[in-house]
């Protein structure tokens, strides 16, 4: 099993450093490109959400990221110590609406739920823990 552990500060430009570090990890550990892109997507969506909603006091805080990979799947865990915030408890998106009626709210999480095989949220002590799994299809 291969692992990647990162900590970033709660600002949007820091997301790019996660994508970069993960790109290096992808090359070294041989993750299929399509899966790597999907994980990039969930990083962007979930980290943006945490940065936007978990820290109402605007302090500089840390977000922890842990990736582990074996032959069958890749697991991602994102941990923050912000206010209780479950990103998956959002209202469902209606993807059948026309251009005029479509809105963007909730779309990011909708993508995460549909692209990952498993996703869970847990509040443990003072921390929000989001865990996701994507299996490699062969």
């Amino acid at each position, binding site marked *: 099993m291969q692992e990647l552990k990162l900590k970033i500060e709660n600002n*949007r430009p820091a*997301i790019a450093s996660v*994508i970069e570090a993960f790109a290096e990890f992808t090359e070294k550990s041989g993750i299929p490109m399509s899966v790597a*892109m999907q994980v990039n997507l969930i990083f962007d969506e979930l980290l943006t959400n945490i940065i936007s909603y978990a820290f109402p006091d605007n302090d500089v805080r840390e977000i922890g990221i842990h990736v582990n990979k074996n032959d069958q799947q890749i697991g991602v865990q994102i941990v923050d110590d912000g206010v209780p915030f479950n990103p998956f408890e959002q209202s469902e998106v209606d993807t059948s609406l026309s*251009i*005029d009626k*479509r809105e963007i709210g909730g*779309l*990011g999480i909708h993508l995460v739920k549909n692209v990952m095989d498993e996703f869970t949220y847990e509040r443990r002590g003072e921390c929000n823990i989001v865990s996701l799994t994507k299996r490699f299809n062969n």
Partner: protein
Amino acid sequence: MFEGNLDTNTAPDAETAINKLLDDGARKILINFENLNYISSAGLRILLGTAKKMKSISGTLIICSLNQTVQEVFDISGFSTILSLAANETDALASF
């Protein structure tokens, strides 16, 4: 043509570039995603806003050359039904 990723950090620049085209009076816009790795909801937001503006001026927006990951995002989000997509630039230009 967009290169790299269209996500939270890069979407604002993309929006500025597209708004400039609209301000200059563009009624036909082709966006080529051949070199785009992935798109997040931040990028979709820009496209939806552009599509709404184009609709209001009876313009045409076509996006072409989506890779598998980007196509999947378009399908999951329902955007492949509400936006005009083309396999490549040649097909797209023929559709205007």
